[in-house]
């Protein structure tokens, strides 16, 4: 279980190479083992230049995708995981774990402790999950609190030293690179016995525990016969525990009000020491019934120093917070649109913001617009062919608002207007963006009194909640729309 090499590559479309290797690290002792294990099927780790080229080609990130290239475009070259074989100098380097996130390509090559021909199934290669975790760890480190390019550069320049701690010989010791950074900084602190490896020091100061619940609500609304609207809540509980002692124990309970929606699909942080079987088995896969476990959801854990995601959950609330319909019709040279949105009465009517984005894909710029709205203002982005309906902080008393109008478009020029493979013809959507503070759709909350802390001193406990929209789509009901299998299960 080890990595032979790791790379960070920035994707730079439009430049001659389309990318630059920003960081790379090779592990020669692992490489030596790979040579023995792989035997005749061994392919050495290439230098950065050839690797960059092969990886960008494989990931279709080179600018030359005009022509059909069999080694990339053939229908039989099917990749179903983020793990690739790269053709370099006539040989295939496999497995290369790679993914693109925020214009950075994260890549590594795990050691496979056997021959590569025939290829063993990925599930049997222990280094694959380690490789992913390694890359996720680097990604978290680069993007936690990072705001601009110079900060990114600073963090990139710290990587060699950090990996000397977190992965000195290719076997990953800790995916949390921030820990390694703290470790380097506090090297003089002598660690006491039985210090967890994931906790590099101890906290000194006022004890406090902060719990914040963020729920994201997704929805697909069609307003159509035979197609069900779908929506789902995804919650993240983030904790920061500033407590003295090596291994303070904390138990946090999440509670639901009497008519709250049960939490399902709960995934917990590895620091959680035990789990109730009801929590483990509560799943969105099963049909819902009244007997579903509805809490309290207890999570006993020993917190790490840093802020961490204690758990994730999903939930199926009975109604979507905002129900809407969108009708769009092509009438000769113009589009006629009608939109209606209704906030459910049970939802807290105090938004931080609420907007409806109405994009028009595969068309020219907006040249003319006539509209009437019952509430809010409309912003027009002509060149982007986008309307933004700013609804503001509150729905009116009726809880229902509408917008109707006609839009005319100019000639299409390929570079400027957005292309979308799905919104063809009248197939179109509007997307809602909103945020409500101090509110969760499930009703889920962390009761400050039920937080148990086994550590010296009584900590100050603070709890936060918010609801955010995410992928909240309302499709034009007058045209076909992409459906999921779930929408067809009426």
């Amino acid at each position, binding site marked *: *279980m080890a990595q032979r090499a790791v790379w960070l590559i920035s994707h730079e479309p439009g430049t001659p190479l389309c990318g630059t290797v920003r960081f790379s690290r*090779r*592990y*020669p002792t692992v490489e*030596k083992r790979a040579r*023995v*294990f792989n035997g005749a099927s061994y392919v050495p780790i290439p*230098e*950065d230049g050839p690797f960059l080229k092969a990886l960008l080609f494989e990931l279709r990130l080179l600018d030359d*995708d005009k022509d059909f290239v069999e080694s990339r*475009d053939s*229908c*039989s*070259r*099917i*990749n179903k*995981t*983020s793990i690739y074989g790269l053709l370099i100098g006539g040989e295939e380097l496999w497995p290369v774990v790679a993914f693109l996130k925020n214009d950075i390509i994260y890549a590594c090559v795990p050691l496979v402790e*056997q021959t590569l021909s025939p290829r*063993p*199934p990925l*599930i*049997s290669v*222990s280094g*694959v*999950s380690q490789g992913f975790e390694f890359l*996720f760890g680097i990604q978290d480190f680069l993007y936690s609190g990072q705001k601009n390019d110079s900060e990114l550069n600073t963090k990139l320049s710290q990587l*060699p*030293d950090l990996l*000397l701690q977190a992965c*000195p*010989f290719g076997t990953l*010791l*800790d*995916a949390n690179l921030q820990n390694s950074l703290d*470790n380097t900084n506090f090297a*003089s602190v*002598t*660690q006491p016995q*039985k*210090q*967890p*490896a994931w906790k590099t020091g101890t906290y000194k100061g006022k004890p406090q525990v902060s719990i914040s619940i963020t729920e994201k609500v*997704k929805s697909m609304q069609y307003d159509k016969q035979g197609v069900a609207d779908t929506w789902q809540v995804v919650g993240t509980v983030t904790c920061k525990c500033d407590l003295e002692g090596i291994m303070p124990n904390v138990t946090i309970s999440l509670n639901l009000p009497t008519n709250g929606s049960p939490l399902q*699909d*709960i*995934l917990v942080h*590895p620091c959680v*020491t035990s*789990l109730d079987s009801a*929590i*483990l*088995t509560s799943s*969105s*896969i099963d049909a819902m019934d009244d007997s579903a476990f509805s809490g309290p959801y207890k999570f006993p854990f020993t917190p790490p120093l840093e802020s961490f995601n204690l758990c*994730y959950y999903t939930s199926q609330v009975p109604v979507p917070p905002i129900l809407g319909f969108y009708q769009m019709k092509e009438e000769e040279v113009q589009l006629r649109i009608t939109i209606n949105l209704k906030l459910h009465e049970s939802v807290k009517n105090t938004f931080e913001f609420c907007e409806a984005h109405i994009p028009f894909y595969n068309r020219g710029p907006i040249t003319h617009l006539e509209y009437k709205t019952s509430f809010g203002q409309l912003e027009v982005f002509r060149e982007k062919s986008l309307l933004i309906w700013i609804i503001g902080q509150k729905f009116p008393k009726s809880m229902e608002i509408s917008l109707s109008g006609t839009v005319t478009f100019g000639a299409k020029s390929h570079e400027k207007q957005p292309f979308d*493979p799905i919104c*063809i013809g009248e197939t179109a959507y509007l997307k809602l963006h909103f945020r409500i503070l101090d509110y969760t759709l499930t009703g889920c909350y962390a009761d400050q009194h039920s937080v148990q802390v086994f550590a010296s001193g009584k900590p100050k406990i603070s709890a936060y909640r918010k609801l955010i929209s995410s992928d909240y789509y309302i499709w034009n009901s007058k045209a076909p729309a992409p459906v999921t*299998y779930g929408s*067809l299960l009426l």
Partner: protein
Amino acid sequence: MGPLSRDAWAQRLGAFRASPSAFMAGPEGEDLGRNLLGDLRSEKLSEQTKVSLLALSLEYPAQLWPDVSAAEVAATSLLDTLVLLPPRPSALRRPLLLAATTALAAGGALGPTSGASCRLLPLLLGLASGSDLGRGFVPASEQRPLQATACECLRELESCKPGLLRGSLGLLRGLLGQEGPVQPLSLLLALVLRNTLVLQSRVGAGLGGLLTDKVSPTGGGPWDWTLVEKGDGRLQPQAPSWPAAEEGEGERSLTAREHSPEEARELRAAVIQLLDTSYLLTPVAQAQLLWLLGWALRGLQGQPPALFKPQLVRLLGTAQMTLLHAVLALKAAFGEALFTAQDEALLLRRLTLAAQHPALPLPTHLFYLHCLLSFPENWPLGPEGEEAAPLLLGPQLCRGLLPSLLHDPMALLARLHLLCLLCAEDEEEEKGQLPSPRHYLEELLAGLRQQAALDEGPRALATVCFQASYLVTRCLAGQPIVLTPLIHGLAQLYRVRPMLASHFVDFLDQVDSELREPLKVVLRQEVVSRLGRDEALCWHLKMLAKVADGDAQSATLNFLQAAAAHCTNWDLQQGLLRVCRALLRAGVRGGLVDLLQVLARQLEDPDGRDHARLYYILLAHLAGPKLGVALGPSLAPPALASSLVAENQGFVAALMVQEAPALVRLSVGSHGVKGPLPVLKLQPEALEPIYSLEVRFHVEGQLYAPLEAVHVPCLCPGRPARPLFLPLQPRCPAPARLDVHALYTTSTGLTCHAHLPPLFVNFADLFLPFPQPPEGAGLGFFEELWDSCLPEGAESRVWCSLGPQGLEGLVSRHLEPFVVVAQPPTSYYVAIHLPPNSKLLLRLEAALADGVPVALRTDDWAVLPLAGDYLRGLAAAL
């Protein structure tokens, strides 16, 4: 040269990293390793610069110190540098330890005879045990980090030389129980334990006191080179490949050895000790521990896998990829012994959930999807190594995992695979499931085709559409209910966007004939139903070159005729000619002759006209099959990258007779004595399948009349071939040498000519019997012949030795057909007709035990020496 400045080093390191091979080939390459070691002791360089030098040596030791001795020197120098560090905190100690370890392990210098190894190992073990190394070697503040680093270094050495630290098991266990840093010691102990278990069982030994002895039994240090040397090159996979392990052969027998109750108890205690503190490890380290211990204990008697149970619930709750993966590894290692059917169902549910959980990133989803389809079931049903949906993963569980157009291409394909597997199962199960997965699949494919049809769409959209179609044809082959709409959908896609012709050609190349043939037909119809004038003409021609065959000739030719008028540039003309070529290969003749004639006159481009004329000539002069071969893919790799040259080379190869090594062997069998002429029986044998074999013979010196060639339709190696009969027409009764040539066609369609080794016609091969005289008249007949030989002929007497079988044996073996009068066992009269018109008469009488006197007469002087040789040959053959 003095030490380089910080900037000079930064520049050098940058240049090196940009391309190590180029740098090493340059002027500075040779000294880099030496300079680096030297400058580590320079007082002018900052620690930070030195750390960056060491970082380079950690990554590129093979470039810096390319051979074993250089690696040894480097490691020694690094250790010296370490010892010479002043006794104050320094950022160099850690990287120096890592660098020395890397230099030894990667450079292949690690071994009992290496001085650096013998310095490094005690140093590492001392540091790992936290013992005082004296003289302030380790400042107090660095003790802890260095202890961890030493453990990491030891672990790397043990990984590269399994068994090296076998003798330290007890020591490490003791350290873990005391004050040592938990994670590095746990991982080191687990690795050494695993390696020891494997190696001990391989040599048939138990653990003995290894787990409890604090001091090595071998003396001279707790490392053990003996096992290492034996097991060298046999590195231990941390988790052997699952399917291989399932076969059970190697691994199981390795661990089958029983340990004594004492050993088993200590082993269990050590494992429990490791597992109990595993929560103190980082998640990735926990995962490593589980992989190591799981596969070490697999099949080990007295070590119940239930030891792992307390960890499982905790692990199942997390979404950490390494942890869930480690649980799957335990599942694969122990199966039902650790996971009951209910546990298995729970694990599958957690995996299903993780494969779609909105809080997890896409690469994680995809990996879990792969794990689902390769899930190590307790009782797998399907063929091993093939992706399949586990039995417990019913349609209900899969619902959330089905694809939609909104998914990323990889997610779409992965989920599509699952959907196909569901459709395949659905075929057998009851209908009425609404909506039916198959219907959903069709809608999805239609959506993908719609995206691929978009004018401005990137190529990736088309690629995904064809990949999805290919996946469906692979999974659902033999289901016309799926394939028929697919075929028509694709034809429609072509109608809308012919520029995807390359994708279609590739698709046709990849799919089975079940889909290929009907798809070809509809695509051909799509193309030929167009008017010749079309912006997409070049794509139509490309498509047609792939799908044109003998069917629907007239429509195809009409299309081509109409298209010819619009083929105004070289590209289009070549495209047109490629279709003609495809038609030629398919054996189309009639209308094509006219078309080629027209093209040979009318095409604007001279190259195009030449080609058309060439095809016309070929068509007019070659038979169908030959034409097919001539126009097939070029057999010889083209010397020039010109299409015309390549094509002509193909013709040359295909149309000319090739001189080739003989692919056929002939051997002479026993000769027949029936009929008016001697006949040589030849046994042919082919080394490769060959066809239309013609064997030609030439007799030296015109001894015989010219020989007819022999024809064989086909010969295959391994299949018994009929013998060939070659009638000989001697002009004089003499042995001869036959030159043999073979002309044949290979399975690739080449006509070859080969020289075969010569064949020899022996004197005896010419023997024919006289017509059998009536019963009782033999003696008179013989006497008449005997007398007729003289006076023109010749007479002789020869002594012929006899073997143990006596005269009777000799005659029956060689002369049987020619015996006229027989008085066994002592007397035989033999009359041989030698074509064209000679005779040889033998009297074998009054045989003794060791020989027989032979009186011989012939009417042909020239035969006498041959006959003498023949008889002596018989004697010699005894």
